[in-house]
């Protein structure tokens, strides 16, 4: 079983609650199955729709793959296409990527480090906060939780300027702390964990207290292990957001040796096109880790990415 969140929470997307169903409950004893109508023509139609939509989704990946075998001058002049011209194709871009003295693998390592640090930190801090919201009654609880909801729904872009000024005032700019610190108590993650924790009976606290475990001991030793499925979904969501994060690191970082992969790739996109070899093969390589993780943990990806809709 792979239930992320309580089963009932999972079955209620939209956050607006279940609308009243129409129709009466069916008589018992009709074994499942919606109705096999339509038959062959409909199946063919669906195969065509799925095939076309699926291929359209994958075309840009093919285009970038083909691009990695092309000369940079060709790329800027001709753009990307789907055909491989074998007379022109070569592995020069790959050779360049691995032998170039440029910063590519430095950026790659920076991104990897930030992704790991940010994900681990965010999960721990957010789980801690979510536990507070889920298990205790205290003053201003509702008001504070509304703050969580409000932050969750304000696009970051609308707050970037005040935050940028604040980071500069705190002398945090051009540091990884600036990237990680403001988002440790992540509203989305807190919200998701809190929904999950509401499915865990509070009796567990009482039992722990009677056994003389401290409030924090209860969290770390009793509750955290129960949160594993929720943590898995949020780990993927946060790691992906962190690996792909662009706008905030673009504002916060200044030194090229601290750049993350997306910022670094962006600096290669110059109008002169003198770096297009690295740009294209670097873009292609930046996709690989995330694709590998996706293929391994597909289910968690989909649960994590669509978690926003789950408001039980």
């Amino acid at each position, binding site marked *: 079983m792979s239930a992320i969140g309580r089963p009932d929470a999972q079955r209620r997307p939209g956050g607006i609650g279940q609308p009243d169903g129409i129709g009466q409950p069916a008589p018992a004893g009709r074994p499942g199955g919606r109705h096999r109508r339509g038959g062959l023509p409909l199946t063919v139609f669906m195969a065509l729709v799925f095939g076309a939509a699926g291929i359209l989704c994958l075309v840009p990946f093919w285009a970038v793959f083909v691009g990695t075998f092309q000369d940079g001058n060709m790329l800027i002049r001709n753009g990307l296409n789907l055909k491989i011209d074998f007379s022109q194709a070569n592995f020069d871009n790959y050779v360049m990527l691995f032998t170039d003295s440029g910063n590519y693998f430095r950026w790659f390592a920076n991104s990897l480090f930030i992704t790991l640090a940010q994900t681990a930190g965010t999960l721990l801090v957010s789980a801690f906060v979510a536990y507070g919201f889920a298990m205790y009654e205290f003053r201003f609880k509702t008001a504070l939780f509304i*703050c969580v909801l409000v932050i969750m729904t304000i696009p970051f*872009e609308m707050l*970037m300027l005040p935050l940028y000024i604040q980071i500069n005032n705190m002398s945090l700019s051009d540091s990884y702390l600036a990237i990680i610190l403001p988002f440790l108590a992540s509203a989305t993650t807190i919200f998701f964990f809190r929904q999950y924790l509401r499915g865990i009976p509070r009796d567990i606290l009482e039992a722990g207290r009677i056994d003389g475990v401290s409030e924090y001991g209860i969290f770390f030793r009793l509750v955290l292990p129960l949160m594993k499925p929720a943590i898995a979904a949020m780990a993927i969501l946060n790691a992906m957001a962190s690996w792909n994060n662009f706008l905030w690191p673009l504002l916060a970082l200044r030194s090229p040796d601290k750049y993350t992969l997306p910022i670094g790739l962006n600096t290669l996109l110059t109008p002169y096109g003198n770096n297009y070899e690295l740009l294209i093969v670097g873009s292609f390589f930046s996709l690989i880790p995330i694709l590998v993780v996706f293929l391994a943990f597909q289910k968690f990806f989909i649960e994590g990415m669509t978690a926003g809709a789950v408001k039980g």
Partner: protein
Amino acid sequence: MKKLLYSPKAAPYLFIGPFILTFAVFWLWPVGQSFLMSFQKIIPGEASFIGGKNYARLWNDRLFWLALANSFRYMICTLLLLIPVPLLLAVLVNSKVGGSRLKAVFKSAMFVPALTSVVVAGIVFRLIFSESGFALMNSVVEVFGYGPVKWLKNDLTGLGALLTVALWRWTGVNMMYFLAGLQAIPEEYYEAAVIDGANAWQRFWYVTVPNIKPTVVYVVVISVYGGLAMFMESFMLWGGNNSPMNIGLTIVGYLYRQGIEKNDLGYASAVGVVLLVVVLAINLTQLTASGMFKKEDK
């Protein structure tokens, strides 16, 4: 001290402490500062109070209105595309027709674009929409007998390129939302409808549509936010914040230009405050409508 930390009375505040701290230091205080700054003229090292002049300037700024119009136009177009298309696909995936393995592969394929960063997506689509006759989009229009199009130099084709990126990246995610909503509809509703003699279309209209409505509302809300906040797609497609005739300038791009590029913090803060008020208004409407303020049953 230790005793206080470990008392059950103090514990809840310690648990939510990190949130209170983050909220105060990184959201509330900066936003308050920004609000004050929106009434000031700020040159490095010196700020003077100028009342509502920044707001008056905003009102008369043609570029601000252009950016606002661009953002709203993009947002409305994404709603028109990214609700019906994914909904239709989700209904097809959810139907009993067709092999389950085909559907599993299809779902994965649809989801993969959402994994890419906006940077890589932007780089790839910038090259696909290149002016050259050899680039992918121009090879496609050539099949229909049209000459090479300067996609990123005209208003409507530029919008088309932005919408292509949005459609490519988000169709799969929205489809997953709708699929989750569809799968939550109890089988019995359909069986009852059949007993009442409903045909396929009636089942869709009277069972599926009303039950999927909350999911649709949710996707509309996040699409409104996403559409109004769009900036990076345009930034990547045009290789920076400048596009010909500002065809790719969005409202966040305008904020970025004034605040970061021109460092006109007072005026940029006024832009930011106006945007925040718009978003908060949408926010409160949505939260009230969905009953979030009602006491939650435990």
